[in-house]
């Protein structure tokens, strides 16, 4: 009888820890939406949804984006709102759990009748929400760089697609840092798709692939992987790890005696916020590719950084997805003003070609694929935890989520 008890307990534990890792918890405070549900455009207010993980593993990143979106809403309200109506945010917690994102998205659209939703971080959460928005004809503003190969009529993508982050950074690395690439990523959709693209690009542009490794999300021991990197002896480690694994990887890389001087690493998921959690002593000299840094030199950015720090504390930092969340609110508000209504079809029509002077420079909505034109920047981590820009494209780059403008990518977008 006793024999199988421990195996049983083991299985239960496994299952529970997986659930735990995936969903964290649900008891964070969510402001109650107004008493009765009224349609968004009625009365003196417009309801907008904010749907990010405020608990669970992704809370580390998404809470700051929520803060930026709330700040944009407050700023817009302070200037008199949209169409003379105040914006009222309805905040929901996606709890780092993809089905929860879909469920909360449905609730925001059907019950709260919000005019639009700002939210999501991981590609998995976006993919979970996408069918809901398409079915109910809602509108989602997604603020994070992602793997491309998607263009939903119900989503506006304010983060970079691959040709606005990964593709130009690989080209730059090939020209400036070396040919031998080692691809390291977390084991899920974004790194795998991104690396598929990079491999095609390396073939086309004369690079060499010396290794490709994936580790489970939340992996904490990189000693073996670092041995593999040493053996492969690459010029560049292209890092698509996500979340806490970055901390373990960079700490252990430094311990193994490998610094930025010995090996170039370029990360696509390490921004100012992550640097604070990893430690600048560990990261100094390593590279990252984004569209915006806290140090980006525009007048809009000075105001944005100052306001953000004033609202949430001097020790807070801004970063690319935070800026993308912030401009999403402004772009939507501008589109609504132009359309004269919050109707989804009208807003989409009005959004075409809309321009906005964002903290990271001027952005323009591409009418065809609902992504935005963005400037691509490569930055180097400095001792103070900020990036120094070492490369930037001449101007905003046209979004090309299916990489149609690249011959070598033909086999990718065909899939």
């Amino acid at each position, binding site marked *: 009888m006793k024999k199988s008890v421990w*195996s049983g307990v083991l299985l239960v534990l496994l299952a529970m820890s997986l659930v735990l890792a995936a969903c964290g918890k649900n008891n964070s405070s969510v402001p109650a939406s107004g008493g009765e549900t009224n349609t968004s455009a009625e009365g003196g207010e417009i309801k907008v949804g904010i749907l990010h993980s*405020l608990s669970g*593993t992704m809370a580390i990143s998404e809470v700051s984006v929520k803060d930026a979106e709330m700040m944009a809403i407050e700023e817009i309200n302070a200037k008199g709102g949209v169409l003379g109506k105040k914006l009222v945010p309805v905040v929901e917690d996606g709890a780092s759990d993809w089905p929860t994102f879909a469920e909360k998205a449905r609730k925001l659209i059907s019950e709260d009748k919000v005019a639009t939703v700002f939210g999501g971080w991981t590609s998995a959460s976006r993919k979970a929400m996408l069918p809901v928005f398409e079915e109910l004809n809602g509108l989602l503003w997604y603020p994070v760089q992602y793997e491309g190969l998607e263009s939903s009529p119900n989503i506006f993508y304010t983060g970079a697609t691959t040709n606005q982050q990964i593709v130009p950074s690989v080209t730059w690395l090939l020209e400036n840092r070396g040919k031998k690439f080692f691809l390291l990523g977390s084991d899920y959709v974004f790194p795998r798709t991104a690396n598929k693209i990079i491999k095609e690009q390396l073939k086309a542009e004369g690079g060499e692939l010396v290794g490709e490794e994936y580790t489970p999300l939340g992996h904490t021991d990189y000693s073996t992987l670092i041995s593999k990197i040493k053996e492969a002896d690459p010029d560049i480690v292209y890092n698509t790890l996500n979340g806490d694994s970055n*901390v373990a990887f960079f*700490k252990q890389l430094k*311990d193994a005696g490998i610094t930025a001087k010995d090996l170039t690493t370029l990360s696509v998921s390490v921004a100012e916020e992550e640097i604070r959690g990893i430690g600048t002593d560990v990261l100094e000299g390593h590279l990252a590719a984004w569209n915006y840094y806290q140090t980006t030199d525009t007048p809009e950015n000075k105001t944005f950084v100052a306001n953000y720090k004033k609202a949430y504390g001097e020790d807070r930092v801004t970063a690319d997805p935070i800026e993308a969340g912030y401009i999403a609110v402004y772009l939507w508000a501008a589109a609504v003003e132009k359309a004269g209504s919050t109707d989804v079809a009208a807003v989409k029509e009005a959004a075409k070609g809309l321009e906005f002077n964002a903290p990271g420079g001027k952005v323009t909505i591409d009418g065809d694929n609902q992504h935005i034109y963005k400037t691509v920047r490569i930055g180097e981590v400095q001792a103070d935890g900020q990036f120094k820009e070492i490369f930037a494209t001449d101007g905003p780059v046209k979004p090309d989520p299916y990489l149609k403008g690249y011959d070598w990518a033909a086999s990718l977008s065909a899939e």
Partner: protein
Amino acid sequence: MDVTILQMFNGLSVSSILLLIALGLAITFGLMNVINMAHGELIMIGAYATYVTQTLFKDLFPEAMFGWYFVAAIPVSFMAAFLLGLLLEFSLIRFLYGRPLDSLLATWGVALVLQQLARTVFGAPNVAVTSPEWLNGGLTVMDGLVFPYKRIFIIGLVAATLFVMYLYIYRSHAGRRMRAVMQNRDMAACLGVSTRRVDALTFAIGSGIAGIAGCALTLMGPIGPSLGTYYIVDAFMVVVLGGVGKLIGTVIGAVGIGMTNTLFEYWTTASLGKVLVFLCIVAFLQWKPKGLVAMRTRSLDS
């Protein structure tokens, strides 16, 4: 050749980390039979205690002293987790003895509460702990072969912790009382041992050791609210594989998992390596359901 030696060392290092995170659990789960899902969060408390110690040293002491914060952080982490363990035992665990599955659910709840507490107090993003200067760098064994000091330090810390635990459990009066209670509670009580006090102390010590683990992990990995979730499965694996109730089983379990994991990961990939290790463990437990070293006692069979 270099790589073989390095991988041996990496395996040993991974084993030592596994052992460190599992030692506390070997007491709370192994000896006391409490399926303590909050074990990971006790590790987290230790990590945050180290962070707080570091910040205090930065603010209060001259810069030359900063390197020594880590020495202070070890007892501080132990005490922080020890006191929390004591509180947990007093307020919750003591009502759950003999009901392992209830303790699983209750401590899981505790784990969630502690995670959100950390998120409220320290914020959702990770915090950074600057490792002391004397732990940076590594021992160059031969050209191109470096053993990081931090990993050597953790191996030493585990050995020391293990030694102290051995002395306590097998060579001290308090340890003898503890073993007596765990093996036959009624008899121990009849002979005048205060089982309440022994229970509380034992659980708190197990928690405190989790705190030490948290302190050591700040050297290697992230320090954030979800830190505990990354280690909890591994910790249970080690204790279950090792066999419930004996320290030596935990040691063998940790070395076994650490070594095979490193090997598999080197031969295949990180994800597949982990799967293979899980498969091996499941297969092994089919063959020996009580783990590597089974303790024969009536109380565990009841």
